[in-house]
């Protein structure tokens, strides 16, 4: 955090206070999130890490106002989450790229701008900028299904960034990719993040991914979903493939792994 290349967070982008979420199911109530307090700084890259069922995806959706919390408040960019979504402060990308087959790559990226009511010429210009950012300019007129999974995910990221959102919410966007593609897109994601200065909340279950990308890793524990620990990652940016080989990276990875295992211990003891 002391190197000059590290983005210096100013102000708070996201603030959660006393957030809980209980889902009612036929077999009784399930507490997905329990009393979450979390501040995410402007320009930060925060990963939510934890085993399945720890509520990390639910937490992401609470931040994005796709799930309404049972209790507590969510503030994004100084306003309540519902207002932030209404004024289109969010860019979202999911594990499935979720592109529209009926639109070309360029028109997929234009979609959020179209929803927003941006004019044709500006839409096209912004989409072309985004295509350049994710290095897919030459595939602008392709159909999503003509692209590989990794390329589709890059289009989804471009689409999420097209509205120049204050907050980028990502739910395991690289989860379905093979290791090579995954590491490649991690580098791309860092490059894009540093180029745009967007605040990123990133859900993952991969320890190296969380450590490589994040300014801070938030480890969550399951049943009920709680924040177990918050671990700042003090590795300088830009992070490269060489970063992964450094002792500092491996120490950070080990540290996160220990915290995660501490979370898992109660449930896996005796296995």
């Amino acid at each position, binding site marked *: 955090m002391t190197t000059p290349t590290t983005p210096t967070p100013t102000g708070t982008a996201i603030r959660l206070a006393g957030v809980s979420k209980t889902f009612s199911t036929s077999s009784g109530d399930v507490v997905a999130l329990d009393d979450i307090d979390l501040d995410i700084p402007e320009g930060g890259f925060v990963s939510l890490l934890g085993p399945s069922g720890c509520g990390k995806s639910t937490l992401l959706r609470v931040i994005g106002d*796709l799930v309404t919390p049972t209790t507590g408040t969510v503030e994004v960019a100084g306003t309540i989450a519902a207002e932030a979504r209404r004024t289109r402060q969010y860019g979202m990308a999911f594990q499935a790229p979720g592109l529209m*087959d009926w639109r070309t790559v360029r028109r997929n990226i234009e979609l959020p701008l179209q929803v927003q009511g941006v004019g044709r010429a500006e839409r096209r210009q912004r989409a072309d900028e985004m295509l350049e950012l994710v290095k897919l300019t030459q595939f602008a007129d392709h159909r999503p299904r003509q692209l590989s999974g*990794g390329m589709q995910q890059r289009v989804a990221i471009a689409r999420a960034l097209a509205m120049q959102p204050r907050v980028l919410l990502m739910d395991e966007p690289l989860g379905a990719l093979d290791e090579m593609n995954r*590491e490649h897109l991690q580098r791309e994601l860092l490059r894009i993040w540093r180029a745009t200065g967007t605040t990123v909340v990133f859900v993952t279950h991969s320890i190296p991914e969380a450590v490589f990308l994040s300014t801070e890793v938030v480890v969550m524990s399951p049943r009920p979903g709680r924040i177990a620990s918050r671990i700042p990652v003090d590795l300088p940016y830009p992070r490269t493939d060489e970063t992964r080989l450094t002792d500092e990276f491996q120490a950070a990875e080990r540290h996160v792994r220990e915290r995660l295992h501490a979370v898992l211990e109660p449930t896996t003891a005796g296995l």
Partner: protein
Amino acid sequence: MSALVPVERPVRLSRGRGRGLLSALAPAAVLGVVLLLSWQLVVLVGGVQAYLLPAPSAIAQAVVSDAPALLSAARPTATAVVLAVLAGAALGVLASVVIAMFEGVARVVLALVALAGCAPIVALAPIFNAWLGSTSIASKVAVATLSVTIPVVVNTTRGLLAVSPTHREYMQSVSASRRQLLVHVRLPGALPALFDGLRVGATLSVIAVIVSEYFGGTSNALGVLIANTAAMSRFDQTWAAVFVASLLGLSLYGLIALVERVAVPWRSATSG
């Protein structure tokens, strides 16, 4: 910056789809020729009476010699069929959008429509003839429109309701309105299903129009021609008219497939 940049290749579209189509059609063409030849052979060698089953050559002869009569009879029939398909598609899509707007009851309504589709719609032909006058094509168009509308509604509504959760969530995240979800996601997503319904409906509409014409009325139509020539035991002419009716159905099917290729280009994007 990095030593390892994985090479990402886009999935290539297979070239020469035309050749693929040809090789796909060839076996069917061969089979067709073999069947026609065997038919001809059975009739000639077996000495089958012409009123029971005319030889393909006799039918072909009738098609040629009766060409003017067949063509003029085909015109009102084709007009009724095309009008029915257009009206059925329009009504079907409209009804589907209305049904899909009420997601809570859509499934129930859909089940009722599908149930109605099980009834033989053509059986209503005499009733429609009585309502709309048997001499106009209106009664034929009405029955056929109904038989197009039902499969279009069933398929299109299913398509409209089947929104992928990721698409829905994405549109929600950008605060899209219900209308925007309909225009940008539901309708284009339902297009393939619409064409599935339209293909079924087109086949049914040809049947509906021809059968309606059996019940009399217009002096000149394929259905009338079929009924009259059969009544006069001129079966080569009956078969010739049936052949033209089949041709009509086939052309309609092909036309719909063609329109689908233009309207739903992404459907064939990966099938190559």
